[in-house]
């Protein structure tokens, strides 16, 4: 008995039909060409391995994306738990009498107001990119998702399996770190 609406898998056509789509999906979440390419490849391999589990309820592409999504969460967990993981520098005292106060050397300095006018500058974009790249991977990833890719908070939380308060702590640390980096590299008086 044939079901007309049942989807089937055609692995020989995967690259042609889905490679670009999966790659774009990945690069908007993981801003690294080689890594994104590897995740796409892993997704196709995992798809092949699991092809007998495909029930044909969803389209081939939706099914491949669901595999890719798990690969992305796995990647996030890896960068979140990596041994000796890099943390951002503290900007505020974390305990004692002065808990929550600015650490002196991290207090904002006033900026050269001339530079602010030059906001459309291409070099500015490069300076920002450099500063984001200097962040520990986890912070860079969440910051990019929220600020550059403009994902909804809820969507990021769902995709990375984190809470919204977790997300705002990451964004806060990323932005305080970026402020300092931009002050030193761009807005210096």
């Amino acid at each position, binding site marked *: 008995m044939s079901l007309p609406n049942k989807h089937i898998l055609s692995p020989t056509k995967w690259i042609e039909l889905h490679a670009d789509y999966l790659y774009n999906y990945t690069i908007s979440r993981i801003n690294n060409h080689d890594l994104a*390419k590897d995740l796409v490849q892993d997704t196709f391999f995992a798809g092949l391995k699991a092809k007998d589990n495909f029930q044909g309820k969803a389209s081939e592409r939706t099914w491949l994306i669901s595999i890719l999504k798990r690969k992305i969460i796995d990647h996030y967990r890896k960068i979140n738990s990596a041994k000796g993981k890099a943390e951002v520098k503290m900007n505020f005292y974390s305990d004692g009498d002065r808990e929550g106060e600015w650490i002196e050397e991290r207090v904002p300095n006033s900026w050269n107001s001339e530079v602010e006018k030059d906001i459309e500058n291409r070099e500015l974009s490069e300076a920002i990119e450099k500063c984001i790249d200097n962040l520990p991977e986890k912070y860079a990833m969440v910051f990019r998702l929220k600020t550059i890719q403009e994902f909804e908070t809820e969507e990021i939380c769902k995709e990375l399996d984190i809470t919204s308060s977790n997300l705002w702590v990451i964004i806060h640390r990323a932005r305080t770190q970026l402020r300092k980096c931009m002050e030193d590299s761009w807005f210096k008086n």
Partner: protein
Amino acid sequence: MKISCDEATKICDKNQYGEASLWDKIKLNFHLFLCKKCGLYSKQNTVLTKCYEVHKNANNEASHCLSEDEKKQLEKGLKAKL
């Protein structure tokens, strides 16, 4: 009502995305009224948000794709497993 600089700047960051609650904003403004350091942070944060916007547009103009060679490589890898 009283919050630390850490909390105030966190609300300020959240507010850059329009996601701070009204009560958060009241607490933030009360803090900014008294704290010059966070006042400067807040002012600079607005500038940075504009900068990130510019960067976002530059980023979205750049196209990201796999080269034909890379796709051939992928194809080869996949065929070997078929």
